[in-house]
């Protein structure tokens, strides 16, 4: 039996890939919203513009254009990884999100503002994307293998009289 074919047929319903696409879509959506909000701001300005609903005490992410672009790029990688079912893209997104989180932490530690105008809420989203993309990229080949095994078992069972 052609193992490649088995794997590909099983990959059609990969839940890891769908979840990676959802994470990516969240990143892209928030990033684009941030870009719209921060348009016209200083590209690397330390203050940034905040996504918020003040009346309801909901204070979300803060962006300058660079921070919004970086998040959009990370989310885009995850989205491509999810849609094409290629874990490598997910790993790229995970590394990118980790880099964003580390950059913010290191610059804060040094007592500076930060290049991306990020707040603790941005840090939380970066961690969500970093951990989520890494875990899903690790699990995708395993799920693919399980789906392949199941297809193979089903084919054998179907062939028996």
């Amino acid at each position, binding site marked *: 039996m052609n193992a490649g074919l088995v794997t590909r047929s099983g990959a059609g319903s990969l839940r890891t890939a769908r979840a990676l696409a959802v994470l990516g879509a969240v990143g892209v959506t928030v990033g684009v919203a941030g870009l719209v909000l921060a348009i016209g701001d200083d590209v690397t300005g330390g203050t940034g513009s905040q996504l918020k609903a003040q009346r309801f005490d909901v204070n979300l992410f803060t962006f300058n254009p660079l921070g919004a672009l970086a998040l959009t790029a990370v989310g885009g990688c995850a989205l491509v990884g999810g849609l094409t079912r290629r874990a490598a893209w997910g790993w790229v997104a995970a590394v990118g999100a980790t880099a964003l989180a580390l950059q913010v932490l290191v610059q804060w530690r040094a007592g500076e503002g930060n290049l991306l105008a990020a707040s603790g809420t941005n840090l*939380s989203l970066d961690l969500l994307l970093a951990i*989520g993309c890494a875990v899903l990229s690790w699990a995708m080949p395993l*799920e693919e293998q399980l789906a392949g095994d199941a297809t193979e078992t089903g084919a054998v069972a179907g062939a028996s009289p």
Partner: protein
Amino acid sequence: MAAQVQASAPTAPPTGTVPAPTRVEGATFALLRLFVGALWLTGANWKIPPDFGRDTDGGLWHFTTFAVDNPVLPPYSWLVEEVVLEHFVVFGWFVLVSEALLGALLLAGLVTRAAALAGAVLSLTILLTVALTPPEWPWSYYLMIAVHLAVFATAAGRTWGLDGILRPIVADRPGASARWYRRCS
């Protein structure tokens, strides 16, 4: 006859597992988890390094001093005064990273039960810090603890969360880390 009765009896879930929720239950648990995750995510917004408000008597510093000014539990007030405020920047980093991480894990639905327990403990410390300071409403902190315990009890990451995807994948994997993950999710 006994065998017939045994065969027709409803199958009980194995000991130590949470029964699978119905669609409505699962969605409700997931919304609860997302709500609590969003709470921590937005809470991380105003913990601002490097001094976390110490130099201006604002932000996290201001709220932490409530534990000393309006003590809820005297030993806890002593701990805050003698240890936390003395090493406040370290404490501030701990709070910031914990809240950001809790928001991330609960929103993702990853190691949800462990994250929910950690959230309940963190909520308890907030309760002990600010509950008796006017105009705080202590019941909001009792509710925070209760919601985290509900997320823990319902293993809410298994619906619309990464735990629901990962658990079947690691179900038969041997080793301590897989065992640890199954317990935490």
